């Protein structure tokens, strides 16, 4: 865990960030990089000499709704960004989660943090992840160099796609100082179809059937009965939810087609408008698992195998991403959870109660170390955040 006695620096310009990182390198110091600090509970870190917060790099640089492009500094709060784009009928289509209540964190997530952790919500299955909307950036590498990559237009293949590398690097390569994202029109309306009482394997089939038809499902989740009790669902049994979004006529037509395709799965109910939104916010935030003291795992698996993961691991599970994302509360040993995820063709991330990331070995592990060294050869930034020397 982070030593709270460590000094927190809050640079206000990219040049200040650059100076601080360059000096840290020269003095063999280590820096922890934070945005809102809401994901610090995930994983461990080697001791650092100073915390560098991006909170005061919080300018909105340019928002061009007609170009579907937004450029901001990384310390801008996610909530503020979402309010801004909503005012023009747009959204961050990857539906980034906060996980603040889930992790018992205080503070406000920032856009830089969302990108550094590549956080994506239920709409991931249709719209892609944070990394798919990350168009360009400026940053300071662990070498203390200011550099940029990508561009400020929605389509670009000039040079290496370093945006993909930054997304999900947890601040171990560079400190973002400006980011450009693709924004998209927000849907006019949404409807969620609900199926009840399905065992996990049947729910998995139903979700695959919905995903494989021309219904453009933008959320597919399955909840055990304890998780389905909360408002707005208030169901006392396992519940499977399928979200449809878009123009009114289109949503109505797709809902009708989907309901017909699912008629072998029993009674179908629907959540409309605000209730649907409230429900998917709970899925996005994994509300059902907030406050539980057991170790919390996020299993990323081939969707059809999703339900199998938790079945080998005693505990409580719920599913998002049509089964491709399994949330699991379990006391089973970390090595076992990772082994099960790996055997099914995926991986496991521990959000609470254990080492977050698994070991990397062989050629792939060595390649990771060389990539880290390309940007941060002295290990100045977030040392050990990704474990295994990264």
């Amino acid at each position, binding site marked *: 865990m982070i030593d709270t006695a460590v000094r927190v620096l809050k640079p206000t310009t990219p040049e200040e960030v650059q100076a601080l990182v360059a000096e840290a390198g020269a003095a063999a110091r280590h820096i922890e990089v934070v945005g809102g600090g809401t994901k610090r509970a995930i994983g461990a870190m080697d001791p650092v000499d100073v915390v560098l917060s991006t909170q005061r790099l919080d300018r909105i640089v340019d928002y061009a709704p007609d170009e579907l492009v937004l450029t901001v500094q990384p310390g801008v709060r996610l909530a503020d960004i979402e309010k801004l784009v909503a005012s023009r009928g747009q959204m961050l289509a990857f539906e980034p989660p906060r996980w603040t209540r889930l992790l018992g964190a205080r503070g406000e997530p920032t856009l830089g943090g969302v990108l550094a952790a590549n956080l994506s919500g239920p709409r991931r299955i249709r719209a892609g992840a944070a990394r798919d909307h990350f168009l360009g950036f400026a940053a300071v590498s662990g070498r203390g160099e200011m550099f940029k990559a990508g561009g400020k237009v929605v389509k670009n293949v000039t040079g290496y796609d370093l945006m993909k590398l930054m997304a999900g690097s947890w601040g171990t390569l560079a400190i973002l100082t400006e980011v450009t994202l693709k924004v998209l029109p927000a849907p006019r309306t949404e409807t969620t179809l609900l199926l009840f009482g399905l065992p996990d394997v049947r729910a998995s089939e139903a979700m695959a059937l919905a995903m494989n038809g021309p219904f453009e499902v933008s959320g597919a989740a399955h909840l055990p009965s304890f998780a389905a009790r909360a408002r707005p669902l208030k169901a006392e049994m396992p519940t499977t939810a399928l979200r449809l979004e878009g123009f009114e006529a289109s949503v109505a037509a797709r809902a009708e087609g989907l309901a017909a395709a699912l008629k072998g799965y029993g009674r179908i109910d629907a959540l409309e408008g605000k209730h649907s939104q409230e429900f998917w916010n709970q899925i996005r935030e994994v509300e059902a698992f907030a406050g539980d003291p057991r170790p919390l795992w996020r299993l990323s698996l081939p969707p059809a195998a999703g339900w199998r993961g938790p079945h080998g691991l005693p505990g409580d599970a719920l599913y998002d991403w049509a089964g491709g994302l399994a949330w699991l509360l379990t006391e089973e040993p970390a090595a076992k959870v990772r082994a099960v995820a790996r055997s099914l063709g995926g991986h496991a991330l521990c959000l609470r109660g254990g080492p977050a990331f698994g070991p990397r070995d062989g*050629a*792939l592990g060595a390649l*990771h170390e060389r990539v880290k060294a390309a940007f941060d050869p002295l290990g100045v930034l977030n040392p050990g955040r990704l474990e295994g020397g990264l």
Partner: protein
Amino acid sequence: MHMPAPDPALIARKGEIVRALRKIVPGEGVVSEPAGLVPFESDGLSAYRQTPIAVVLPETTEQVSEILRWCQANGVKVVPRGAGTSLSGGALPLADGVVLGLSKFNRVLEVDYANRCAVVQPGVTNLGVTAAVEGQGFYYAPDPSSQIACTIGGNVAENSGGVHCLKYGLTTNNLLGCELVLMNGEVVRLGGKAMDAEGYDLLGLVTGSEGLLGVVTEVTVRILPRPETARALLLGFATVEGAAATVGDIIAAGVIPAGLEMMDNPAIRAAEAFVGAGYPVEAAALLIVELDGPEAECAELTGHVRALAAQRGADFVRISNSETERLAFWAGRKAAFPAVGRIAPDYFCMDGTIPRGRLPQVLTRISELSAEYGLGVANVFHAGDGNLHPLILYDADIPGQLEKAEAFGADILKLCVAVGGVLTGEHGVGVEKRDLMGEMFDPTDLACQQRVKCAFDPGLLLNPGKVFPTLHRCAELGRMHVHRGKLAFPELPRF
């Protein structure tokens, strides 16, 4: 355009190199006689040609691994090649290198409908993936114009786009995993069938790296259920401004069409003369708008788009009433390049992206440049995402015209960058835009990218001469310049 000077010592070792490759790939998998090498001399950027030392066509990942390991140990450069349809010279051979062709990796290994993905070898064509899954109502979304010929491996290397990438994304947004062979022969698997992988997103990094980081030997792609219906509109305008404003209006109305294309008058005329798609040859600009989804949605949005176009003065409107008609609307656009090829002996296809709002200004400047250089130009444009394809017409048999066309193209790309855009939207940097990288990136930006190259290929043997204007030795890039002495920002709190 100049390639790095070849190493005569390597060329002199041809016999030894061919023998070593034959040991790894027996039989006809190694091409070394001059006549056999001719088809590999160039790719889709046919202005540039070069005969390689040899071409090797392996059939297994193990062979690829052995070839790369041997080449690294012996300092031999390697140029990977799919179908050779690159428009930026990505597969242009080197006089002192071997070409590694993946054409024998042509099998679809697995279609997994439950997980909505297909595992294919890199030599499978783009359209071949769709062909393997369309019986079950699925397709592979990225659709570069060369999709009948271009391969998935090449698509990964170039991060290929297509007319439908506005709504469905580029190659990078439609990949789940790959098997990659590094220059040292090591084989790594990146991603799989899950929606994300642990550690750095090396799959995303490798996609679009133009064959400089590794050789892809297996690809897992996402497949999508076909939309219920698709409908296309042809909208003709008397002014470019009217067409450009309509594009902005469509996006502002919250509509993301499956395709949103623009052609200027010379492109309309060339396409119409070639395929007779029914385009309005008097129009200054033509929009092709495709809407897909449920019938109800297509009907609603078609009406919407039509009304927006009318407000901007569209005086030619056709709406497809059948699948045949929709494909006919596209036939002209998809054949735009060969159509232009009929009206001039040679052409260069440029590929910059601009903020869409700058389109009228950029097109005006391009026609001024056209007059200054005395070379014709036709414009096709992925209007929805701002990706411009000016086709510069020239005649390579007239001395000086190639150089003039290169200079004209460079001016267009500089203009794209100057208005806030980029050098390439989907064709890649290759050799074509290599020397313009400095327009977009400063030396530090390029050094950061080159260090990534060094992490994958420290000997700089994989596809050198592409993407980077100058390849610095990795040892030189690795140095840390630490400035002690004077502190910047003395007022800042310190450690």
